[in-house]
């Protein structure tokens, strides 16, 4: 049902070449091969998904199955002081992660406080003030580069900085916050930048046209409109660093008891706790020990803490979504 070869050349086609459309007609085999290719790609793409699911599901499943065993209220409400070998503590548990949860939250909060305002304002600079000048290009480039800084280098940096400035041996939660904020910063800048960019220029103009100053336009219109996106970006940035281990081993150290002072003394975080318990691998039970002594308890604690960490990330995500929803741009038409 295709081409008609005998058509009248019309005015505008004067001088146009006469086309034999049969030449361009798809051959039957080509149509079939295109269909086949399409089907193959569909299968491959679905397959990629399935293949990727195997390890990812396995990771989650392993953590869940191994972690659930020791995850209980006692585990969440005690720290590791007074835990000896595989023996139960007086409270009937086997030690817990309270100190690590507190440490994780404080250190992460510390890094948020550092990197979110700076990152956000940097994004404001890039989008609202710089207009792609030389400096802005350099900054954008360096932010990209910064997002590639290995976490261990961030740890080394914070460690070097604190030992150089505060003297050797200074280990505290805040040094950990500094290391983490270095890792968060580029994510915050990039995601905020993206979010600010998609705020329609219309809105800025509408605001300027009402005689509103630039600062108020930015804070009250642009940032407000971008808020849900900025929040999710920040949550993503937090999730990125909350599981960091190596830099915190260097900067915040490990302690069995609860330390609530971010600026003084060592602080345990959940990933470090997971790692420490993994390093113990097993606990000793003396020959005459009762059944209450569990030699495998460190690995069990390790998995349980890993599960707690995932749950915290989950909760954070939930909060982020909630906040984003509350501040979301009101229903579309």
């Amino acid at each position, binding site marked *: 049902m295709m081409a008609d070869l005998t058509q009248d050349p019309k005015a505008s086609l004067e001088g146009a070449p006469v086309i034999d459309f049969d030449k361009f007609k798809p051959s039957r085999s080509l149509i079939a091969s295109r269909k086949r290719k399409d089907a193959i790609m569909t299968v491959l793409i679905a397959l990629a998904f399935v293949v990727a699911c195997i390890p990812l599901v396995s990771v989650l499943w392993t953590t869940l199955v191994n972690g659930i065993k020791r995850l209980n209220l006692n585990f969440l*409400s*005690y*720290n*590791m*002081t*007074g*835990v*000896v*070998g595989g*023996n*139960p*503590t*007086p*409270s009937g*548990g086997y*030690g*817990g992660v*309270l*100190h690590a949860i*507190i440490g994780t939250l404080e250190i992460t909060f510390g890094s948020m406080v550092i990197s979110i305002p700076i990152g956000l304002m940097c994004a404001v600079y890039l989008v609202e003030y710089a207009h792609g000048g030389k400096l802005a290009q350099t900054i954008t480039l360096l932010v990209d580069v910064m997002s590639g800084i290995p976490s261990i280098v961030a740890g080394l940096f914070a460690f070097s900085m604190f030992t150089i400035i505060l*003297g*050797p*041996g*200074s*280990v505290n939660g805040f040094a950990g916050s500094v290391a983490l904020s270095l890792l968060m910063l580029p994510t915050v800048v990039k995601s905020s930048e993206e979010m600010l960019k998609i705020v329609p220029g219309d809105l800025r103009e509408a605001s300027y046209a009402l005689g509103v100053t630039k600062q108020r336009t930015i804070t009250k219109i642009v940032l407000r409109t971008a808020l849900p996106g900025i929040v999710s970006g920040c949550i993503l940035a937090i999730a990125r660093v909350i599981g960091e281990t190596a830099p915190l*081993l260097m900067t915040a*150290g*490990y*302690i*069995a*008891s*609860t330390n*609530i002072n971010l600026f003084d*003394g*060592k602080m345990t975080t959940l990933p470090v706790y997971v790692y*420490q318990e*993994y*390093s*113990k*691998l*097993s*606990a*000793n039970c*003396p020959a*005459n*020990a*009762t059944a*209450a*002594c569990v*030699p495998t308890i460190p690995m069990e604690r390790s998995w349980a803490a890993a599960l707690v960490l995932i749950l915290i990330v989950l909760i954070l995500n939930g909060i982020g979504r909630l906040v984003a929803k509350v501040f979301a741009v009101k229903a579309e038409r």
Partner: protein
Amino acid sequence: ACGDNTTASNSGSNGSSSSSDTTSSSTPISGNFNGAGASSQQAAVEAWVAGFQGTNPDAKIAYDPSGSGAGVKTFLTGATAWAGSDKALADDEVDQSSSVCAANTTAFDIPVYISPIAVVFNLKGVSDAGKHINMDATTIAKIFDGKITKWNDKAIADQNPDLKLPDTAITVVHRSDKSGTTQNFVSYFKDQAPDAWTYDLSENWPNSVGQGAKGTSGVVSTVKQADGTIGYADFSAVGDLGTVAVKVGDKYSEISADGATKVIDDSELDSSVKGDNRVVVKINHATTTEGAYPIVLVSYMIACPQYKDTKTAEFTKAWLTYVTSSDGQKTASQAAGSAPLPDSIAQKDAASIEAIKTK
């Protein structure tokens, strides 16, 4: 503080501290005290802290198992009261310590934790049957140097006439990180099989044979993961893996805490070390004492004879006293499977601890 497990008078259901006469201080210690260092001591220190707090409930003690090197480094900055280390202080570290210890005194180290290092293996039909393999130092050294590659090698088979050894390839598993365990392990070869082991003594594994794994936990889990593996690890981490019985004199000696105590008891102190009050053991790998197990890790605590702060001095003295007491040693052996200090060493330790000035 928040979330502490009530630091009970004893360390669990079958805890042991019958009396606390050994900690002679009449007034209980209070305050916050920090230590850092060898991860090998971690389990023992946790038990000691619990035990110590039984009599000194107001003392808050934190130990960061950051590693011997980091522990000594931190100690030398004055940030910690003591350090745990798998090896004795080096000369320059002794020199540096005078800036941390008061009145130009220098730090000293005393053995507090002795643990046998097991040569663990995983071999179908042998280790899962709960059997040991007998080996002499040369055989072990050759295996770990990649010179013996099959489990049914003649050198092994000759020493184990009762075992049916399979034709499985040997996979050596060693520590990949810098480790005191490694150094203590290979120093056994250097003494007992110098021809088979020609590498320099180091905390890093010297050859590229087999596989490396991070930490004792890494070695143990790697050994567990495949058939035909052999590695070395702290006795407490062995679990249900097979262990090699090591030739001592004419017999093969299975690993045991007592065996480790025996070899230390049979060892001399290194009198050539720099500085005062130091108790450094030269492990006598050549011991022929019946039942002795010669591959041991001796781990030290490092402290100052004088501190700038009296409270720290009081604490350190009481702490070390408790740690080296028979009570403390018993607690550790229950919690960490370590070998109690032989009396000879405990006495030397006590003398050094006595030198800590608290006034």
